């Protein structure tokens, strides 16, 4: 109960460090979600609609990567960008950019996998009907997008949720550096290690509230779009 009061105090105190941490968290989650969707959605659409050699292998691979443990993704990226690693000269270790890279590796398979199954199951009938009606390809894509926007938004939100909640990979590659790469989850981990359990829980509640606001905004936008 104490944690709930602390969570509200924190939110309304507008603590400078908390705002900075929230800023890094949102920046990281936004860019990793955007990039994963830019790669994952078209890839998912391609896999969902076309048939080609090696498709079933590719699908198995993507489904395996959907369950990739974040720590493993973090270690993998760390090994690539460590000082003596193949990309060490880019000096990206312990920056927000590398956190986005690790997140994109984690989230893209999820976006691809979810969107390909969604398109396979729902869009195929639409495409067949539309072809039957003699609509051109551009119109078909538009129709699929507008029919499936609720699912698409939920895929994007899944990606965002995964990104905002992730701790294992970002603490390895980001380093949880104060005023630089600290995000909400690594801050919660730090407070837990300090023994400030109720404060850590308060931070967790703040994170949940923000996730809730983002979700509410998204569903509001979907509703608006439907009313148009």
């Amino acid at each position, binding site marked *: 109960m104490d944690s709930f009061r602390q969570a509200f105090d924190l939110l309304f105190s507008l603590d400078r460090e908390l705002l900075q941490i929230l800023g890094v968290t949102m920046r990281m989650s936004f860019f990793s979600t955007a990039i994963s969707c830019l790669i994952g959605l078209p890839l998912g659409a391609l896999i969902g609609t076309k048939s080609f050699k090696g498709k079933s292998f590719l699908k198995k691979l993507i489904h395996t990567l959907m369950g990739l443990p974040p720590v493993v993704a973090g270690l993998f990226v760390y090994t690539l960008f460590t000082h003596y690693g193949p990309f060490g000269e880019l000096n990206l270790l312990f920056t927000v950019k590398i956190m986005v890279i690790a997140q994109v590796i984690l989230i893209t398979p999820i976006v691809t996998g979810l969107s390909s199954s969604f398109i396979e199951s729902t869009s195929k009938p639409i495409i067949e009907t539309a072809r039957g009606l003699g609509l051109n390809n551009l119109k078909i894509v538009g129709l699929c997008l507008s029919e499936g926007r609720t699912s698409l938004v939920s895929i994007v939100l899944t990606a965002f949720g995964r990104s905002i909640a992730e701790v294992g990979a970002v*603490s390895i590659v980001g380093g949880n550096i*104060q005023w630089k790469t600290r995000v909400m989850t690594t801050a919660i981990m*730090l407070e837990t290690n*300090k023994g400030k359990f109720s404060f850590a829980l308060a931070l967790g509640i703040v994170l949940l509230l923000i996730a809730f606001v983002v979700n509410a905004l998204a569903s509001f936008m979907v509703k608006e779009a439907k009313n148009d």
Partner: protein
Amino acid sequence: MKKVLALLLAFVMVFALAACGANTADNGETTTAAAPANTPENAVIRLSTTTSVNDSGLLPYLLPTFEAKTGYKVEVQSAGTGAAIQKAKDGNADVILVHAKASEESFIEEGYGVERLPFMYNFFVIVGPKDDPAGVKDSENAAAAFAKIRDSKSKFVSRGDESGTHKAELKIWGDNAPDAEKDSWYISAGQGMGACLTMASEQQAYCLTDKATFLSMKDQLNLDIVLAEGDDMKNTYSLIAVNPEKIDGLNTEGAKAFIDWMLSDEASALIAKYGEEEYGVALFYLLEK
């Protein structure tokens, strides 16, 4: 008829199990000569300690002897000193082994601890890039070395997690503590000792560490000890039994048995030897009683 058979079968199984149990108990007593006459009623001792004690391998090295001798089982929870103390305050530990004098004293003042028993120490060391760009070598003590790091704005990785090591670092900085927000050379990592040393190696930064953790990771780090001695680098470890008058459900007898053994000549001899075989130097020294 079926019911009778089932009952018989159940009896046979119960006897078989009882016999097995008796057998293992017999074996236990015959194989370990030093086994206690009777295993203590509450055999589990919950020890909350810091990562440095556990990661250095000291506890895995000491505990089997204690457990074989007394029949107790020590469950070690390791975390930063702050969390280690908080767990004890929450009633989740019987005894703590930590290294942050001020926090230990307030733990006792608040009534959670019985008595602070300092029993061993070692030294913090300053590690840094092999070419020592800030010229820390030959500094008189850690405070002088920190001043050189500060003046040259050389990178420095801080634990930043309110652990015993972090508190010791802040004490050395004193009034000259850098501001992690403005001083970009000062990296407040908020992680454990191992993660901070890895980061210092990557960034070619200086770092204050306990010697044991550094030695255990030395091979994978591109760092050297640049300052090993100074009057402000002593790191004292204490044992504190949690106060049964403040917290209920404690294994107070177990905590007492553990503390008594840790302060015994047998444990002292083991502690004094620890590290010599693997690193060629002792990692912990005993405080004079």
